[in-house]
């Protein structure tokens, strides 16, 4: 195996050394319960509040608008189910979202549909973008919530969040965004962008897994998902995971400090990779090429099945992912790729390469060297490819 390249940073990122070092003392020395009054408890309380300030600052929020959660999924569930239940008291039982949200959002919406809520799933079109005018047209008298992700986790497209925020504000509708893929990678300011609730997850920006945060604009009513003790000002119970919270804040601070430098460097690498892979015949890029996350490459190769592609890459030391049904164990290919209009057979052959600041130009060289022969080999074994080349099978 020549080289090891981890390029699945949208799935999760390695914890940085600085983050791990920041976490350790909370396991060994300051292990006290931060709600306790004595020394080892107080020693854990201050860093907890400092972490809250850091997270708030990175989002343009106030510290008392930040609540710590166990990750992005909890945040999405809390925001969507909470606001929906609260608004339904006023008879508002309509939710607007998009067709290609993360399952934490989609399945929360589906749970609400079973309770009698009505959900509008906005089209994301071929480029993977929600159209603000379509969103505005979907708003009704009884719309309780708009929930649109900041950036898509598979194809990396960045939604027109400020425009959506302005529309929601104009119509007095609460706006939640799942910003799990965006936080730490693009500039976010919840006040300027009129975001009412935002969920994030630490492990997407070199923080630990199992920790996240939610921003809830002060004044917005969003009943608890997890009731109990008085932690998080009574809005999220559970002994605080101080080590992970501190780790997250260090990771986020680091990411936000370097947003511009990383974005510039990564988008250059991304574009070089895309251009190189587009030389492979019958390949295509999924999602808008410009309005996308700096580190996101998502492509399809006709006649190729995604799982065998990623297993082959793994054998060469390259970690990437595929929206193929075969990887997920479900029979349907990625709902994201179907939402942007890809036919099943092509959606089956998708490849997602997601870079972080830890990747290098050499990584790109290596992928560009290794990938084309793998495609060739798999195609030579593929009965489908034969038909495609013979023109018996027509693709988009």
């Amino acid at each position: 195996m020549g080289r090891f390249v981890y390029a699945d940073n949208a799935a999760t990122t390695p914890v940085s050394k600085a983050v791990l070092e920041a976490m350790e003392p909370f396991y060994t020395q300051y292990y006290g319960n931060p709600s306790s009054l004595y020394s080892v408890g107080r020693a854990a309380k201050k860093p907890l509040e400092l972490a809250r300030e850091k997270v708030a600052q990175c989002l343009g929020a106030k510290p008392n608008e930040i609540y710590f959660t166990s990750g992005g999924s909890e945040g999405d569930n809390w925001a969507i189910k909470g606001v929906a239940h609260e608004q339904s008291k006023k008879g508002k039982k309509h939710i607007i979202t998009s067709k290609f949200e993360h399952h934490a959002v989609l399945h929360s919406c589906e749970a609400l549909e079973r309770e009698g809520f009505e959900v509008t799933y906005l089209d994301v079109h071929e480029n993977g973008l929600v159209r603000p005018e379509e969103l505005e047209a979907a708003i009704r008298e009884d719309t309780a919530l708009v929930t649109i992700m900041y950036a898509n986790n598979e194809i990396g497209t960045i939604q027109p969040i400020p425009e959506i925020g302005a529309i929601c504000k104009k119509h007095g509708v609460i706006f939640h965004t799942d910003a799990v893929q965006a936080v730490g990678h693009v500039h976010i300011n919840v006040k300027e962008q009129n975001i009412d609730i935002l969920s994030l997850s630490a492990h997407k920006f070199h923080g630990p897994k199992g920790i996240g945060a939610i921003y809830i604009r002060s004044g917005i009513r969003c009943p608890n998902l997890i009731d109990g003790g008085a932690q998080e000002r009574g809005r999220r119970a559970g002994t605080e995971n101080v080590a992970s919270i501190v780790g997250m804040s260090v990771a986020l601070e680091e990411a936000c400090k370097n947003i511009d430098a990383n974005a510039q460097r990564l988008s250059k690498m991304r574009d070089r990779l895309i251009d190189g892979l587009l030389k492979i015949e019958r390949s295509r890029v999924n999602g808008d090429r410009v309005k996308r996350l700096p580190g996101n490459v998502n492509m399809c190769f006709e006649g190729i099945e995604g799982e065998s592609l990623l297993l082959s890459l793994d054998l060469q030391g390259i970690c990437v992912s595929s929206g193929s049904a075969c990887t997920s164990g479900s029979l349907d290919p990625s709902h994201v790729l179907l939402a942007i209009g890809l036919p099943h057979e092509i959606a089956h052959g998708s490849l997602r390469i997601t870079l972080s600041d830890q990747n290098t130009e050499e990584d790109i060289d290596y992928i560009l060297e290794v990938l084309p022969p793998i495609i060739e080999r798999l195609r030579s074994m593929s009965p489908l490819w034969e038909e495609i080349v013979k023109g018996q099978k027509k693709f988009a």
Partner: protein
Amino acid sequence: MAYSEKVMDHFANPRNVGEIPDADGVGEVGNPKCGDIMRMYIKVDGDVITDVKFKTFGCGAAIATSSMATELIKGKKIEDALKLTNKAVMEALDGLPPVKVHCSVLAEQAIKSAVADYYKKKGIDPAPIVGDIPECESCACEL
């Protein structure tokens, strides 16, 4: 979901890939739902399968089961090849993750349909000999 070393070996170095231009029987099976396609070519001498090749569009398990299945029937009598079940192929691969069981069904189907094609070409009704070609249960039930 993790694959056994055997599966990875057969995936990385598949045996008997390719086609037989003057095959005595060709079977193509596929599942429109998950989009996988497997094509199997056989060469027959008397009642013995002397050569076999395959082409597969599918996941790691689909490719590995194709490869293993061809190994298991090469040089065997037709009647023995027809007895090969997807379970036997899976066992030979040291197992498959539960969600991948259906991929091995494709291999069993491909062999049977190649043999059926062989008999058809000879003008013999394959139905009584080959019997039912199994349906993939996974296609019906939810995973």
